C-alpha cells in the first residue's frame, strides 16, 4: 500500500515519529501527481522545489525533536485561488496566468506552520465560478471515478487530486457549494466552515460575503484535523470571528445519541435521482439507528436561494474583479490605443465567459435605479433565509440533506446551459447564504460506481455537531473500501 493511501492522520503520525521522512512522502506525492496529472488535469502548477525544501525543514525538526506540527509532512494540494508567495497563483484565469504573488494567504501560512507540504496548486473554475470545473482557462478536470465526467466545481482540481490519491488532503473554497459538490462527486469529505471561521486573507475574492476556505479529504477525521490547522481569528481579515476554536477531534464520536436531526421537506422534493435519494435515506437511517431523533421540518425560502445567490454573488464579484484592469499586474493587452481601450481589451482578453457573464449581471444589478429591486431585495431575502435556519436550529442539532440532485454529470453535459449549471447548486446555496457550517460526506455509490454525497448543516460555529454526525455515518455505514479504477 502506498503511503499516499494512508490518510493525513496516519502520515503525520509516521512522520512525527520518524518512521517515514517527510521528504519520502513528498517525493512520492510529486511523482504520482506528475504521472497522473496528464489524465486528470487536477494541478495547474506543481511546486517541486518548494515542496522538497519544506519537507526537509519538517525532517530537520523531527531529528531535532522539535514539534513539526499537526500536519507534519502531509502533502497537500492548494486550490489555485489561495495566494502562495513566489508561486504563481492563477485563480484559473488567463488574466492572472503569470501572476506570482509577493505574499502568502493566511491559510497557506497556517498549513506550513502545521508542517504540511504544498505539492501544487489545484485546478478550478475561473475565479471559483462554476460547478463542474469546465470554466478553467487551464482546461477541464476529469473525475477519477469516471474520466468522462466532471469532478464538480469549483474546487474540482482539489477533489480529483484527493480522490485519485495524489494527495491525502487538499484545500478548497466554497462560495455556494464549491467544496461540498466536488466532494460529493468525488466521494470525499469536504467542510465549508462557518463564515468567519477561516481567514480569507490572501484568497482571491469571488463573493466576499460568501467565500470560505475548507478542507477536502478522504475521511472525516482527516477533515477535522485539517480544519483544526486553518481555523481562527486573523487580524488581517476583519470578517473572521474572535470565536474560540474547539478541539474538533473531540467530535469524532461514532454515535449521535441525543441529537435531533432535521429533514427539511424542500430538500427532499421531486427531482432527486432515485439512487441519490436511496443513499441519502440510508445515511439518515444510520443516524437514527445511532441514537438520533428525526424531525421533519420546513425551510420555505429554500427555493429562493438560487435567485438570491445569483444576485449577491455576481454583484460582489463585479466589484471584486474590477482590480484586474491590466494596469498593475496580470494580463495587459498589447494593442491598446488609450486608457479605455486598455481596460476593455485587457479584460476582454483576460476573462473567460463565466466571469464576464457574472460581471455583467452584477454590474447591472448594482446600477442606479436597479439597486433597490435587485441587490437590496436579495439582501433582505438573504436575511430571512438566515432567520429560517436560526429558527430551525432551535429545534434541531443538525439538518440533513442531499448535496446535489444527482451524481457527477458528463463533461459538456451542462456546459452550454448556464442556467442548468446554476440550478445544480440548489441544495448547497442556502447554507452559504446563511453563513452556517455545512459538509459533504460520502454515503454510497450508484450502481455505475459514482460517489454520492450526504450534506449536514449546523448552526453558526457548531462544526463539531456536523463532524460528529458525519463521523457516525462514515463509521457505521459499512461501505467496503473502494478506489477509482486506474488510480
Amino acid at each position, binding site marked *: 500500500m502506498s503511503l499516499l493511501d494512508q490518510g493525513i492522520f496516519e502520515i503525520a503520525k509516521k512522520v512525527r515519529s520518524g518512521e517515514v521522512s517527510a521528504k519520502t512522502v513528498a517525493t512520492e506525492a510529486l511523482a504520482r501527481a506528475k504521472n497522473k496529472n496528464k489524465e486528470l488535469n487536477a494541478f495547474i502548477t506543481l511546486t517541486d522545489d518548494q515542496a522538497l525544501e519544506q519537507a526537509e525543514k519538517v525532517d530537520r525538526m523531527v531529528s531535532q525533536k522539535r514539534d513539526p506540527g499537526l500536519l507534519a509532512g502531509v502533502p497537500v494540494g492548494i486550490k489555485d485561488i489561495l495566494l502562495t508567495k513566489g508561486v504563481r497563483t492563477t485563480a484559473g484565469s488567463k488574466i492572472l496566468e503569470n501572476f506570482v*504573488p509577493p505574499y502568502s494567504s493566511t491559510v497557506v501560512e497556517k498549513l506550513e506552520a502545521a508542517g504540511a507540504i504544498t505539492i501544487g496548486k489545484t485546478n478550478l473554475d475561473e475565479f471559483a465560478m462554476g460547478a463542474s470545473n469546465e470554466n478553467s482557462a487551464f482546461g477541464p478536470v476529469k473525475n477519477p471515478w469516471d474520466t468522462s465526467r466532471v469532478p464538480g466545481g469549483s474546487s474540482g482540481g482539489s477533489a480529483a487530486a484527493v480522490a485519485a490519491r495524489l494527495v491525502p488532503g487538499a484545500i478548497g473554497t466554497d462560495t455556494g457549494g464549491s467544496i461540498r459538490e466536488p466532494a460529493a462527486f468525488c466521494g470525499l469529505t469536504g467542510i465549508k466552515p462557518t463564515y468567519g471561521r477561516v481567514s*480569507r486573507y490572501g484568497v482571491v475574492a469571488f*463573493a466576499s460575503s460568501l467565500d470560505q476556505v475548507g478542507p477536502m479529504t478522504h475521511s472525516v477525521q482527516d477533515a477535522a484535523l485539517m480544519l483544526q490547522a486553518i481555523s481562527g481569528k486573523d487580524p488581517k481579515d476583519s470578517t473572521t470571528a474572535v470565536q474560540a476554536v474547539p478541539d474538533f477531534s473531540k467530535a469524532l464520536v461514532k454515535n449521535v445519541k441525543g441529537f435531533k436531526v432535521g429533514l427539511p421537506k424542500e430538500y427532499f422534493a421531486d427531482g432527486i435521482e432515485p439512487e441519490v435519494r436511496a443513499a441519502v435515506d440510508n445515511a439518515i437511517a444510520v443516524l437514527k439507528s445511532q441514537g438520533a431523533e428525526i424531525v421533519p421540518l420546513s425551510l420555505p425560502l429554500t427555493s429562493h436561494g438560487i435567485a438570491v445567490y445569483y444576485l449577491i454573488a455576481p454583484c460582489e464579484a463585479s*466589484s471584486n474583479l474590477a482590480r484586474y*484592469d491590466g*494596469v498593475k499586474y496580470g494580463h495587459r493587452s498589447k494593442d491598446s490605443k488609450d486608457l479605455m481601450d486598455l*481596460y476593455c481589451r485587457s479584460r476582454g482578453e483576460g476573462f473567460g465567459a463565466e466571469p464576464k457573464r457574472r460581471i455583467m449581471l452584477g454590474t447591472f444589478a448594482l446600477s442606479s435605479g436597479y439597486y433597490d429591486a435587485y441587490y437590496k431585495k436579495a439582501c433582505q431575502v438573504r436575511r430571512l433565509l438566515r432567520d429560517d435556519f436560526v429558527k430551525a436550529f432551535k429545534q434541531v442539532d443538525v439538518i440533513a440533506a442531499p448535496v446535489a440532485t444527482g451524481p457527477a454529470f458528463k463533461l459538456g453535459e451542462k456546459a452550454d446551459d448556464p442556467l442548468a449549471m446554476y440550478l445544480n447548486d440548489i441544495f448547497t446555496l442556502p447554507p452559504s447564504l446563511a453563513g452556517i457550517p455545512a459538509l459533504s460526506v460520502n454515503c454510497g455509490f450508484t450502481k455505475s460506481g459514482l460517489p454520492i454525497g450526504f450534506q449536514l448543516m449546523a448552526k453558526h460555529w457548531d462544526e463539531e455537531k456536523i463532524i460528529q454526525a458525519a463521523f457516525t455515518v462514515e463509521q457505521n455505514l459499512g461501505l467496503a473500501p473502494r478506489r477509482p479504477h486506474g488510480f
Partner: protein
Amino acid sequence: MDFEAVIGLEVHAQLLTKSKIFCSCPTAFGHGDNENVCPVCTGLPGALPVLNKQVVDFAILTGLALNCKIQKHNIFARKNYFYPDLPKGYQISQYEEPICLGGKLTFLVDGNEMTVGVTRIHMEEDAGKNTHHGEFSLVNLNRSSVPLLEIVSEPDMRTPKQAGEYLRALRSVLLYLGVCDGNMDEGSLRCDANVSVRTRGAEKFGTKVELKNINSFRFVEKAIEYEIGRQIDLIEQGQKIVQETRLYDPDKNRTVGMRSKEEAHDYRYFPDPDLLPLRLSDEWIDGVRKQLPELPYEKMNRFATQFGLPRYDAQILTQSRDLAQYFETAVKRSNNPKGTSNWIMSELLRVLNDQKKEVADSPVNADQLGDLVRLIDQGQMSGKIAKGIFEDLAAGKFSNKTVEQIVKENGLVQVTDTKAIEAVIDKIIAANAGQVEQYRSGKDKLFGFFVGQVMKEMKGQGSPTVVNDLLKKKLKGE
C-alpha cells in the same frame, strides 16, 4: 434681473494619522515612489482592509466640533469606478450611513455672524497619483488609502466671500482639533464647490454646477465669482445651465466643462462585504468628546468678553490655537489685553509673516512680548526701547533670555532718577528759549517737541511718565 447665487462646499480633509486607513503603511510624504505601500493599498488579489481606529476617533472629534449627530451604526461602501490611481477599481467610502449628520458651523463674515449647515461627514480612502510623461503615465500609490474626511455643507452660502470665510473657519476648526494640517497647496485640504444662481427671492434652486480643482485658498472665491458670472451671462442670454462638473483653471481664471450629467459615473455603491458594520458605543463617543478643545468661535467670543477685546482683535487672535495660546500666555505677564493684542497684531504677525514662520517657531516668545508690554505700562521702559528689544529678538538676538536679563545686560534700565532727568530738562529749556516762550504763551502742541528733545538727549532711556511730569512743572516755571 437681480440674481443671487447658491453655494455649497464639499471639503476633503486629509487626516493626520500615522498610518493609512485600512493598512499599517505610513502616511508620511517625501518618500520614494511606491515605497509606502503593501498588498492592501495596492489592491493585490486577496488583500483585505482592516479599519484604523484613529480615523474613527478623528471623524467623531470633527463631527462633535461641528455639532453633528454621531451615527452609532456605520457602513463602509464601495464606490466603483475605473482609474489607474484606484488600484482596487473601487474606493472604500461611506454612502448611505455616514458617521456624522446634521451639523453646523458659525463664523464671522465682515464682522457679522453667519451659520452654515453641515449636511454630513464621512470617512474614506484617498486614491494614488498619476503623472503623465508624454508617451506613458506613471502611478504612485503612496497616497492610496491615506484617510480622508469628506465634509459636505448645506447650500447656505450666497456670496463667494461667505464661501471663503466658511472654508477658513472650517480649516481653523480642523487645525484646532489637530486632525488635518489644512494645507491646500499640498492637497491635504481640498475643496469642490456646488454653484447655482436664481433670481433673488426665488424658492427653487437653479441648476447646479460642480467646480473641481480649486487647489488654493486664493482661488476659492475667484473660481466661484467667475462661475456665478458665467451662469448669469448664460441666463441673461436666454440659455440653460447644464448640470455638469467644471474644472477651474487658475491661470486663465475661468472654468472649463469636464463631464455632463449624462456621462456622469454610476458608482454602483454597495456595502463593502470585507468590513463589518462599525458600531459606536456611547463610551467611545464620550471618550472622544473629552478630547474636544475650545473651538475658534467660542474662543473668539470668550476673548471678546473676558479680555474686553474688540471682536476684530479676538477673531484674529483666535485664528489658530497656537496664536490664541500665545496671547493668553503673554497677557498673564502683561496684564494688559488690548496692549498685548496690539503688539501681536501689529508687530508679531508682521515679523512672522516676513520670516514665513509659524507661531510655534516665533523668535519672540509670549513671555518676552508680555514683559515688554508690562514694562512700558509700568513706566519702566519707553515704547521705543521696547520696540528695539523686540526687533533684536526678532532678528535672533538674545534668544531664550528674559526681558529683564536683556535690560540688565545691555544697560537699558530706564532712568527714573528725578535729579538726572531734571538736569537734562534744564539743559533743553535753556537751549530752546524761543520755544519755551511760545509754549508759555499757549502753544500747547510744542510739549511733544520738548519730550522728544529730552528723550533724544537721554537716548530714550528716560522714564516717559517722570519726564512728562517734570517737564510740565519746569515749563510752567515751577
